[in-house]
C-alpha cells in the first residue's frame, strides 16, 4: 500500500470477502451466496404500484423509486431502455484499486461463472455476457428482484439486463436478452458509451 492513500475498511473487507469465498468454496458457490444476499435485500423492499410509466419515471427523478434507491438515478433512453451513469459499486472498486491497484484474484472466474446460463440468470434475465465484474451478480439480480415488487398500472414489470461496462471501458453484451427483447444491439452499445449499465423495462400484458 502506497503512503497517503486512505483505505475504506468496509469496501476493502467486502471485496476481499468475495475473494475468500471464491477460495473457500469455489466461484459458483460464492456467486450463489452473493445472489441470494441480493435477493434477500430485494425481498425487504415494499411493493409499489405506479399509475403510469410517467409516474415510474418521476419516482426515479425524485429518488423515491425503489430501484433508484439502491442504484442511483437511471435515465430513460426511450423505448423503455434505461442507462445507469454510475455503477453503485464504483466507489468500492475505486477505493480498492487506488490502494491495491488491481482487483483481487479469482474475480475473473467469478464473472465468467455469473455469465453462464443458469437458473438464476434465467429467472432474473441477467448475466449471459452482461456481467463485467462480481458486483454485477449482486446488482443485476437485486434490481430484477426489486422490479418484481413494482407494478405499473396494476401490471407486473420485468427487467432485462442488456449490457454493462467495466471500469476499464470494456463492454459486455447480453446477446440472449438483446435478441429476446428485440432491442437493437447498436442502441445498447450507444447507451453504454456514456453509461455503465443498460437494461430494458418490460410491462407485462
Amino acid at each position, binding site marked *: 500500500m502506497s503512503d497517503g492513500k486512505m483505505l475504506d475498511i468496509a469496501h476493502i473487507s467486502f471485496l476481499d470477502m468475495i475473494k475468500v469465498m471464491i*477460495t*473457500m468454496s*469455489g466461484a*459458483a*458457490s460464492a456467486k450463489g451466496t452473493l445472489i441470494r444476499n441480493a435477493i434477500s435485500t430485494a425481498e425487504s423492499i415494499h411493493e409499489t404500484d405506479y399509475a403510469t410509466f410517467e409516474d415510474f419515471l418521476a419516482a426515479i427523478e425524485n429518488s423515491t423509486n425503489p430501484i433508484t434507491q439502491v442504484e442511483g438515478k437511471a435515465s430513460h433512453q426511450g423505448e423503455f431502455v434505461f442507462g445507469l451513469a454510475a455503477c453503485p459499486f464504483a466507489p468500492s472498486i475505486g477505493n480498492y484499486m487506488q490502494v491495491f491497484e488491481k482487483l483481487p484474484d479469482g474475480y475473473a472466474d467469478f464473472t465468467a*461463472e455469473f455469465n453462464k446460463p*443458469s*437458473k*438464476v440468470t434465467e429467472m432474473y434475465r441477467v448475466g449471459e455476457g452482461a456481467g463485467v465484474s462480481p458486483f454485477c451478480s449482486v446488482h443485476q439480480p437485486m434490481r430484477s428482484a426489486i422490479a418484481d415488487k413494482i407494478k405499473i398500472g396494476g401490471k407486473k414489470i420485468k427487467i432485462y439486463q442488456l449490457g454493462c461496462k467495466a471500469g476499464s471501458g470494456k463492454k459486455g453484451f447480453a446477446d440472449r436478452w438483446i435478441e429476446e427483447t428485440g432491442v437493437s444491439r447498436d442502441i445498447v452499445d450507444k447507451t453504454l458509451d456514456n453509461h455503465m449499465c443498460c437494461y430494458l423495462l418490460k410491462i407485462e400484458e
Partner: protein
Amino acid sequence: MSKNDELKKILIVDDEEDMIWSLQKNLKSERLKVVVLTASSGEEALEVLKNNTISLVVTDIKMPGISGLDLLIEIKNRYPYTSVIIMTAFPSNEYKKEAILRGSLHFIEKPFDINQLRDMIAYALKEDNLFKGTVAGVGLTDVIQIKCLSRVTSALRVKEDDKIGIIYFQDGRIIHAICKEMEGEEAFYSILNFKGGMLDSLNVSDMPGQTINKPVEALLMEWARRSDEANNQEEETELEQLAPGFGRVADQNINSGGTNQSATGTANVTEEDDMAELKDVLTEFTNIPGVNTACLVGRDGFLLDSIAISGIDTEMIGAIASSGFGASESMGRQLEKGQMSMSMIEYAGGPVMLSPIGDEAFLVIVAEKEANLGMIRLKIKKHAKQIAETAAI
C-alpha cells in the same frame, strides 16, 4: 535317546563355504542350544530336509540352481511348520515382499552381527513351540477380531488356492497387509474376499512399516460396504440381463410417449418430458429404502429439481449444500486430490451424500441411518450421466 536328539535342528543353506563354516562355528551359544546342519545348495537342502526333522532353515536368497525363494516355496509346501529365515546381501523390497508372500517372515541382511542372527533364530524357534494346525469353521473376520482383542503383535497368513495374503497386527491394531501386488487397505479388503482356505498365525521379528491407520471396526465396515456394493452391482447386472431396462423408468416413459429423440432422430423431447424424466430418475433414489430426499442443485446453490419428504426446505438445503460441496471441491484442489466424485457427511440421524452431476450441478441425497449406502453410490454412478443430459447441465 541322545542329547542331540532332544535339540532342535537348524539347517544353514548357502553356496559360500566360508559363510557356512562361520555360521556353523559361531551360532551355538549358551542361550541357543541347537544342532546345526548345513547344505551348499537348494537341492542339497531338500535332501537334508527329507532325512531330518528340521525346525528352522536359514537360507541365502541368491544361489545357483534352486534359489532361496524357490527353496522357501518347497519348504512351505512340504514342511509347512518349518520356519525359514532369509539371508540376503541384496536388500530389496520386492524380494522381501515375495518372500513374505511365500511364507517367510524373517529376514536378515548380510553382513550381519552373529548375535542378531542368534536372536532371530531364538525368536523363530519360540514360534515353533506354539500350537499349529487348522481350525475348521472359523470365519476370517472372527480370527481378525480375536487377534485385535488379544492385542497381539503377529501376522496372519491367509491362503486360498494359489492366493496368499498376510495381515500384520501390532498391539492388536492392523498396521499392514499385502496380497499380490497390493499393499495396505486394498490388500486387506482383497484378503477378506477370500472364500475359504488356510490360516497361519506367525510371529514376526521385523514388522513392516504402517500402511493402515484405521481401527479394525472401520476396516470391517468399509469391507462390508464394498461387498454390499459389489453384490448390488451383480444383482443389478443379473436383473438387467433378465429384464433389460430395469431401473430406467425414465427411458421407458420416453419410449412409451414415442418421443425418444435418439431413437427417431427427429422428434423433440419437450421441456415437460425432461422434467418428468428428471423426476423419474430422482425417484430412483427415493425408492431406495431409507432415502427420503433427492435434490438436484446448481453449483451456485439454486435448486433445479427435487423429491423430498415434507418438512425439508429443499431450496435452503440446496443453498447450504452448495457451500459444503464447493468447500469439498476446494479442499480437493488444495490437496491436489483430483476431481471430486462424492462427499458424504455422517450425522447421528444418517448420512447426506453429495455428488457432482456434469460441470454445473450436484446431487444431494438425504438418507436414514439404515439406508444401503452401496446402493446409493451405485445409483449415482448409474444415473449421473442421464441426469446431466436430461437437465442439460
